[in-house]
């Protein structure tokens, strides 16, 4: 019986490249790999937004209307629905003058039980140390 911890770090803003979207897609997909695992083995997943990456978490994104794409806002909410630990760097939000009012906090409309966590970078660094595999996007 083993637990594999995955850590996804998103450091770029959304849409211009596929990077942030890939991070979210892979993080979400990691929660559906049970069929490939031995009984009792599990994969846990944390996703952290740092630097310019915190801009992925802004509310009221209208990418679906304008680009015909699932917004990163929706993908963050899907991650919450799957109980993925979503961390957002407090120092970087402060740097941009953003508060919790500006970003995705919960996904109640999807039935998610957990919320994003605005945390000091030190907590994200601790998550990275505990992760078995780290993936930077």
């Amino acid at each position, binding site marked *: 019986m083993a637990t594999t911890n995955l850590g996804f770090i998103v450091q770029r803003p959304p849409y211009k490249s596929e990077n942030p979207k890939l991070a979210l897609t892979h993080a979400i997909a990691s929660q559906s790999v049970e069929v490939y695992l031995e009984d009792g083995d599990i994969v846990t997943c944390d996703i952290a937004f740092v630097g310019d990456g915190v801009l992925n978490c*802004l509310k009221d994104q209208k990418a679906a*209307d*304008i680009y015909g794409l699932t917004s990163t806002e929706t993908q963050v909410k899907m991650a919450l629905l799957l109980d993925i630990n979503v961390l957002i760097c407090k120092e970087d939000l402060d740097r941009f003058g953003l508060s919790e009012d500006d970003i995705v906090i919960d996904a109640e409309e999807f039935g998610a039980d957990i919320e994003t966590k605005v945390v000091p970078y030190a907590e994200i660094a601790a998550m990275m140390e505990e992760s078995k595999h780290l993936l930077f996007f």
Partner: protein
Amino acid sequence: MKLAVFVSDYRLTVDTLDRLTADKLGIILVGNGVYHASIKDKGKASSLLDKSAEFYALSEDLDSRGLGSKDIADNVKVVNYAGVVDLIFNDYEKLAWL
């Protein structure tokens, strides 16, 4: 020369804009370039906005990123796709894309 430059990145590691000269310079913020119009870093607006130019930001790219028309810098005019087309055909002679 009337030059319009599309800026589609937020961070610009090489400031090509400084090397461009034009009698009339327009900077059209699109894609991730629209963050220059709205996001403040450590309380300061993007240094890009200090340049001597006419600034425009594409409303559709602002909306898609959750920025809308709020907190747009005073010297930036928000335009839609049709407005950008008008700029290209009526206001500028050449275009560059950064």
